[in-house]
């Protein structure tokens, strides 16, 4: 759990064109909590929102608790961010994926690539 005193940034309900995500920074960890569907229509925008916050981060945590499902559009973001984080010896972690999401990770073998908790 993040210590509220350590949080240096909190954006609640950042929303553009229907994609909603909460961002939280704690040191060099960026936590992102998107809401809704991570699909072909919403994913490009979510990726640019995350990339705008990524500078200097060594860990990105994507909390999928409020994500209903993700398609290959959502996998595309997770792969691209993982590749970039690994490039700089950082990591990307996904947490709280529901059954639909875990199934997508299994079929696509993203279980081999991602840190999933």
């Amino acid at each position, binding site marked *: 759990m993040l210590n509220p005193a350590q949080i240096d940034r909190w954006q609640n309900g950042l929303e553009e064109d229907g994609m909603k995500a909460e961002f939280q920074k704690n040191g060099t960890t960026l936590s992102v909590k998107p809401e809704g*569907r991570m699909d072909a229509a919403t994913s490009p925008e979510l990726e640019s929102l995350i990339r705008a916050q990524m500078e200097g981060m060594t860990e990105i945590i994507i909390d999928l608790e409020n994500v209903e499902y993700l398609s*290959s559009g959502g996998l595309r973001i997770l792969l691209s961010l993982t590749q970039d984080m690994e490039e700089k010896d950082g990591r990307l972690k996904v947490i709280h994926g529901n059954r639909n999401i875990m199934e997508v990770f299994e079929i696509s073998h993203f279980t*081999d690539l991602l840190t999933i908790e």
Partner: protein
Amino acid sequence: MKEMTVQATLENIEAVTDFVNAELDRLDCPAHARAQIDIAIDELFGNIARYAYDPQEGPATVRIETQENPQRVILTFTDHGVKYNPLLKEDPELPKKARERSIGGLGIFMVKNMMDDMAYEYKDGMNILSICRIIDQSEKKAH
């Protein structure tokens, strides 16, 4: 049977998904099957939006019908864009290292895995792609 014809654009994926979900709700479709069908719409309608009429735009029709014994939903996507049979696409390689991965081909691969049947035909200048998903009410208990 119900159908809807819209411009094949990424923005219209949501309208198509809502249209199909309204029918799935009427069938009391379990949440897991519904999510899989919604993912299939995203992949297949998304492909039509991106490639069928590129660089222009054109229409696509999505039809939903149900059959019994076992209860199943059949979605048919029709467009008159460039001829393309996604079932001929080879399954992607799935290397274990992120830097060796690409996302190409994963969408169709997932749809093949999640649906019970898929069929394609090219007829009268139209791509006609159907997917079938069995609606098993006992999936609710497993959830």
